[in-house]
């Protein structure tokens, strides 16, 4: 894992997810896709690691132990040092309120589980390519996952 730097060769993604299988899956695919990855399995750790590592983007599950994803996002967005970092909310709940809550907390994008690794990568790439320009583009919560595009 590399330190906070604007000079890293590859973007650093912080994956915050308490469910180990899912977290390791995203980590494996992101690394496979060429990203540096850091991990956190609860909200408190997520805030600490973000402040410490200043990743290029945070993938934030909302249902987390110790501190939930909304609160973690709120704290990060209220912090001068971390405010600029895009946060992609990730949730298994497609119920109304989750998306609203995520937006209010300051999330830049919203992705509903199940989200296939390549779809997630596509979303991350989109946010990193156009930093802060496309923050409004919240993903459809009831969206049927798109068919996987084969990476060549």
């Amino acid at each position: 894992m590399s330190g906070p730097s604007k000079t890293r060769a590859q973007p650093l993604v912080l994956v915050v997810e308490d469910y180990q299988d899912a977290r390791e899956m995203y980590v494996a695919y992101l690394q496979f896709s060429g990203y540096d990855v850091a991990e956190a399995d609860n909200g408190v750790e997520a805030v600490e690691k973000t402040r410490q590592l200043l990743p290029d983007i945070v993938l934030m599950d909302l249902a987390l132990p110790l501190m939930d994803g909304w609160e973690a996002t709120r704290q990060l967005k209220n912090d001068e040092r971390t405010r600029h970092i895009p946060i992609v909310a990730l949730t298994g709940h497609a119920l109304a309120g989750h998306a609203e809550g995520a937006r209010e907390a300051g999330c830049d994008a919203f992705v509903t589980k199940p989200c296939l690794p390549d779809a997630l990568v596509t979303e991350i790439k989109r946010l990193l390519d156009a930093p802060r320009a496309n923050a409004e583009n919240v993903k459809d919560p009831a969206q049927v996952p798109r068919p996987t595009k084969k990476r060549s």
Partner: protein
Amino acid sequence: MARVAAPVAPVQGVDSDAKLAFVEFLLTSIDVQESARRAVDWLAAHATLSEVAVLVEDGVSNEMQLVAEHGVSSGVIMDFSLNRDDPSHPLTEALNSPAPIYLDKIPSHHRVPLEAKAFHAIPLRSEAHAPAHGLLLVSGVGRELDPETVWLARTLGKQLSRLLGRQLLAETRFGQERMLLYSIINAVTDPILLTDTEGKLIIANTHAEKLFAAPEEASEGWRRAAALNNMLFSAALSTSAVGMIEMARRELLLVDPLEGSDLLFELLSSRARDERQGTYVVSILRNVTDLARAKEEIEESYRTLRIAQAEVRDERHRLDLIIDSVADPILVTDQEGDIVLMNTPAERLFNTPGIGDETALRRVRANGANLTSFVSNVLTRSGEQRYRGEIQLGDPLTGRPLPVEAVAGTILSEQGELMWVVTILHDLTEAIEKARLYEQLKQASVELERKVQEATGELAQQNELLRRQHIALEQASALKSQFLANMSHEFRTPLNAILGYTHMLLHNVTGQVTDPQRKSLSRIDSNARHLLALINDILDITRIEAGRMPLNSMTFRLGELFDEVQSELEPIIKRSNLTVAAKVRGAVPPVRSDRQKVKQIVLNLLSNALKFTPAGSVTMTASYDARVRQVSIAVKDTGVGIPDEDQVKVFEDFRQLDSSPARGYGGTGLGLSICRRLAQILGGTIDLDSTLGRGSTFTLRLPARARRR
């Protein structure tokens, strides 16, 4: 025949008072015969003689009439008459003689009124040399005339002269008397007419003239009325003339010439016969107009009276009926307490029953005694108008005790003395029974009220229970929804890992996989996706049923939506080899609705169409109906179609005619059911038009601008 002048003896010996009385009588008398008779009587009383007779000339003929006699036989009187023109008659001679003559030899062919063979004939004249108007014949006095007779003859002569002379005078005063007569008949207020038998007017008084004769200056109406009256009068008279009734009385209706009103007269006509003038008719008309009116009024009054009497009778009859129809006994008693009137119900209690029923009789008497004591109580309290009390009576037939309430009122005469007592008896057994029933009713009512209150309490309890159950149900429903939502989350987490790792394996992230492995991984992937779709659909239905499906209205164009849906289903479309087209027909305005939900519906409809169409085409068409401001999205395929009997079923939960996920993206069997629910949430509908074997058209209709919910 010897002519001897009879010496006139001086008046003496006779009572002068008698002479005075005789003279006074003559002065008051105006009648010749009366005077002559009085003279004869006087002579018979005061002179000695046997026969006396007085002859007086007739005013018209030359006959001498015997007007008074004394001692003459009636046969002689009947036969006697003397014509003054017969000069041979000794009495004619005596009449023309200046002095009395004594006749003693009268030839038998000359008739004289006296039976005596010799008598004195004294001419009666007013004074010497005046013509004699009569003769005084006296017999039985001897040859010498006594002075009383001479005096009487002179006095009577003067009297005759006076009376006969007055008669002449009266003749000259006839005209005046005629005038007087006229004024008399004119003074009579009834019209009087003298007519001939034809009704031609001879004499009429002024009242008659008013009716029958119009003056020169009279109006046309007056003249006509008078003419009419004449005709009516003549007609009335002629009808009576036919009957030849001497005195006729009938009614005659004439016209008042001045007023024009009808006048009713009673016509009284009588015939008079006059030898010189023939037969004429005297008619007297009596105005009975008022009389007739009065008669009519009397008749009317009488009729009214009759009607009133009849009414009184009816009234009395009605009153009797009413009194009899009153169930309560009514009695009228006099001051002595004797019953003068009672109705039928009272008769049952107070009338003596048939003979032989001693028990009943005793009871009736007991009733009577009780009533009498009550009435006497009333009488002692004369100050009160009403008196109320209770009497114990008994039924005469059964002996059943009969407690009654008696209400008595007194009827006073105009002078204020008590005439009658009216008593009404009211059977209290019924009232007592009623009171008992009322009490029962009251108790029942109380009981009922208690029960109602109980029932109400129970109802309230049940309501409360229901309310709690309702809350519990709502809570349970919410819990269920929450549970399902949580479940679907819990499902997703492992499913997410399954799909993710399968994906990574298929994409050789963890190294190259063999073809048989790839085939197995694809099966895992496909089934995991199907499971995910099921979970999503269940979640949707749960949310819709829980009323927790959020609506997010925005404005969008249907063309763009079609593009999106097509691109999302691009892989399936490619695989299907179907011609898929999207058309916007006419000018379809931008739609304001929940874009995501509309898209979900269209996606579902299109994927269904692709799934059930083996060959041909699928067409999406958008159109707009401006009249109802409605947009329609029709998804038409040339597929297998749906039989009529199943066209309703396809919208039910978990209904899929082809129950296996035969096609790539499968189906949960909840798709159309969710679509219809979503359409309803958006204020729209989904309709199906399909023919088996020829294809189906699903049409979504939505308001172009959804109302805010």
